[in-house]
Structures are given as C-alpha cells and as structure tokens.
C-alpha cells in the first residue's frame, strides 16, 4: 500500500516537475533586459520584448482582483455568517456551477455583453471576464475558512455584548484572515494564466497600455499568438513569456503561503 501510494505520488509529480524544468530550459535563454523593457518588434525584425504584456497581465489581474475580491469575500461572509434562509443554498449552488463553467464561455458572455455594448475590446472587459472566473473561487474559499472558526469564539464575542457585525469584524474575520488571504491569492494566481476569456475581451496589443477602454496585451495571449506563428524568434519569446507567467503564478502562490504562515504565526 505504501509502495503504491509513493509510486502514484511520484508519477503525479512527473508532469509538474517536467513543466517547470522544460519551461525553465526553453524560456531562460529568451530572458534578458530587452525582454522586460521593450515592446514587441514587427514580425521579421530581430529582438524586442514583451514588457507591455507583462504590464498588461499585471493590470488585468489587479483589475480582476479589485472587482472579485470585495464581492467574493462579502459573498463568502454572507454564506457563512448570515445565510440561514433559502437564498444561501441557491447562491452556494450557483457559485459551484460558476466554478465549473469553462472559461471560454465566460469570455463569450463578456464579449456579447460588455464588448459589443462598448463596441470595442478593452482591458475592462478582460478584467471583468477574469473577475467572473475568480468570484466563485473567492466566495467559496472565504466561506470555508469562516466555517473553520470555532463557534465558541463567536459565542464568546456575543456574550461580551458585541453585535453580530462586530463579532464578525473583530473576531471571526481576524481568526480566518490567513486562510482568506491564501484563498484570494490562489484565485488570483489561477486567473493570471487564463487565455481563452481574454481572446474575446482584452484581445491583444503591440503597444503600451493607454487606458482601461483600450485593447491590452497579456502574457497568455502572447504565448498563444506567438507559438502559432512559424517564426523561431517568436517561439523563443513565447517560451520566455511562459517562464515569466509561471514564475508570477508560482510567486503569488508562495507569497500566499508565506502570508498565511505569518498571520497564523501571530496567534
């Protein structure tokens, strides 16, 4: 039994390790000062970088987090603390359904609502699409973390004469903060790599981002675009972009763990 589980774990680790190693080997040669500072050159011209795509991904993710974190965390609080009526199970079910919706469908829906209404592809539409993917993840992880807070702490606070709102703010949220932050950062990392919903919404751009109502470049879309061209130079840049994206996601995840540890360590 032990042998079997160790074997299975080993096999499960192979794809993960090979992704990291392969992306590292292929991507590292593409990374240089130019990659992080220059705009993409026209096809055929050598050199150039993906600085606009790095910045674009950061903007899109911040936009998505700015929309999804407040909404998602408050939804999670509602589900865990207030939702004793029939609305809560419905919301919970919808969240679970939304988690399972393929991201390309989220892209199409935002395309047909936001993009067609604004009559343009935009960073805003991209951020909204990513936020829709994030929202149920954040809401459900927040709810789960709040449920882990022992009921005795809520009662201790109520018994001091605190209102329910005060109890949630001062006791429940503080106790669950580490878990909520981890969940939020993992959800952020998850959407940073989404490509499909961006193809219909933020599209792509060869220039620096100028406004939220303009098309915006992003690393995943550049990886997709460049890797489907026949040019060796662009393949190299795509690998570089892949490495940067993986590092950003990995960095966020590690930061989430450290943040959680720090918050819990202060107990």
């Amino acid at each position, binding site marked *: 039994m032990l042998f079997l589980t160790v074997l299975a774990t080993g096999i499960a680790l192979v794809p993960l390790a090979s992704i990291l190693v392969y992306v590292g080997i292929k991507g590292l040669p593409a990374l240089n000062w130019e990659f992080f500072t220059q705009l993409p050159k026209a096809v055929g011209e050598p050199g150039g970088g993906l600085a606009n795509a790095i910045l674009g991904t950061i903007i899109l993710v911040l936009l998505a987090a700015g929309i999804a974190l407040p909404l998602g965390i408050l939804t999670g609080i509602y589900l865990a603390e207030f939702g004793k009526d029939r609305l809560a199970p419905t919301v919970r079910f919808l969240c679970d359904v939304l988690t399972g919706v393929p991201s390309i469908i989220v892209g199409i829906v935002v395309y047909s609502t936001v993009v067609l209404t604004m009559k343009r592809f935009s960073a805003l539409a991209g951020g909204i699409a990513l936020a829709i993917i994030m929202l149920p993840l954040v809401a459900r992880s927040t709810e789960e973390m709040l449920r882990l807070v*022992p009921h005795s702490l809520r009662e201790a606070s*109520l*018994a*001091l*004469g*605190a209102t329910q709102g005060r109890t949630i703010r001062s*006791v429940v949220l*503080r106790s669950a903060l580490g878990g909520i932050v981890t969940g939020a950062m993992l959800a952020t990392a998850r959407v940073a790599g989404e490509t499909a919903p961006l193809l219909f919404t933020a599209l792509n751009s060869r220039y620096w981002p100028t406004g939220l109502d303009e098309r915006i470049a992003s690393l995943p879309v550049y990886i997709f675009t460049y890797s489907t061209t026949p040019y060796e130079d662009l393949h190299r840049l795509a690998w570089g972009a892949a490495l940067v994206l993986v590092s950003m996601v990995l960095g966020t995840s590690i930061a989430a763990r450290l943040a959680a540890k720090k918050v819990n360590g202060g107990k």
Partner: protein
Amino acid sequence: MSVKIKVENLNAWYGRNQVLKDINLEIEANKVTAIIGPSGCGKSTFIRCLNRLHEVVPGARVRGHVWVDGQDLYAPGVDPTEVRHRIGMVFQKPNPFPTMSIFENVAVGVRIHGLKPGVKLEEIVERSLRMAALWEEVSDRLYTSGVSLSGGQQQRLCIARALAVEPEVLLLDEPCASLDPISTLKIEDLLVELKKNYTIVIVTHNMQQAARVSDYTAFLLDGELVEYGPTPEIFTRPRDKRTEDYITGRFG
C-alpha cells in the same frame, strides 16, 4: 438579601424539542447559585437563557420572563447585546480569542462598548486580571498570545475578559470541566472572592463543587426544576426523592 434575577415560567426549545419546562426561581444578589443535574437536563440552556444567548442558535426559542432588577430581559424592544453587556458569561471550554494578545483579550469588550471618559484601558485590564487572580502570572507577558497560557490560566483569562466590561451578573457554564484539580481549586476560590461584587450562577457537573462554592443550589431533571434551596439543605435534607437519588450518586 435581595433578589437579583427572577425567572418566571421560562420555557425553551431547540426546534420542536422542549428543553426547559416552566422554570420558576429567584436568584439572590451577591450569592453563588449552582445549577446541577445530569447531562442533557437543560442546565446549560437555562443559563444561556439568562443572557439571551440561547436564541443565537438556529431554531432555538424561548418563552417566559427573566427579570433582572425588575426589568424583563424578554420584553419587546430589549436589545440582547445590552443584556449580554450586563450579564457576563464564561464557557465550558476556555475560549480566548486566538488572534489577540492577553491584553487585547481583556480589552476587547471595553473597546466594543467604548471607554468611559477619564478611565485608562490599562487600568481596566490590570484590575480585571487581578480580580481573576491572573495578574501575577501574566503581568510580564501581556502582549503574548492568549492561547499560549495553560488551560486553567486561559479560563481565568476568560473570566477577566468577562469582568472587564463590568457586568452585574456572571454566568459560568461548567467552567472547570476541562481543568485539572489545582486550576479548579483556584477558580473556586476566585468565585467566593467575586461574589462580594457580583451575582454568580454556575452550572456544574461536579456535586462536590456545588457543595463547596455555592450558597443556593437548583436541581434540574429533564428540563424541570425539581428542587431549589440553600445548598446545605439540598445536600443534607433533600425533600424530593429524585434529588436525593442524584446527589447520592444513584443515577446521573
């Protein structure tokens, strides 16, 4: 001698399950009143009705009156948070707030209700910890976490936390159930000290404890008040056969 709490026709339910049936009793001011009885007899529910904490459980319901100094806690328009401010509670398992320091644990209630002008928070914290007989042990590490203390210290921290908001009544729900005998003794000594200033109601499983610390004892069985009177009488000359069976250890 004066009556602090008058319980009148108190009934309580969890869902459709009635756990308290027509309880009537009067609790004396500045005395320790013990509530004894076998598990599931409604002891905890009873004291949770005295600070309106019973009703926070989904499906829980109360009917009846609890008069504290002549004011009915269950009258319409009474704010339960105000009731809980006046009537402090300590729970069976020590439950200090894990994210807060020892100081913060004691100060949090005062912060919730607002500091009276001219009073220093540090003074309240020190006074409360002294009243809970914990000051000597923690004065040099007030800013370390409350959960770093031993179980007995944690429970005294919870008592200090409850005292800091200056309640009139202190409810204790089996406060020594998870403590060792030495910590238990400390808390019992503390209760005798505290009754000078507070009215104390304690739920206990431990009949020796009821005999040691309490002035009055109420015996509950299956949600009914079987017998209530001065502790020495209940333990030496119980009037009801069921009380006698329980305190002599024939059941429960």
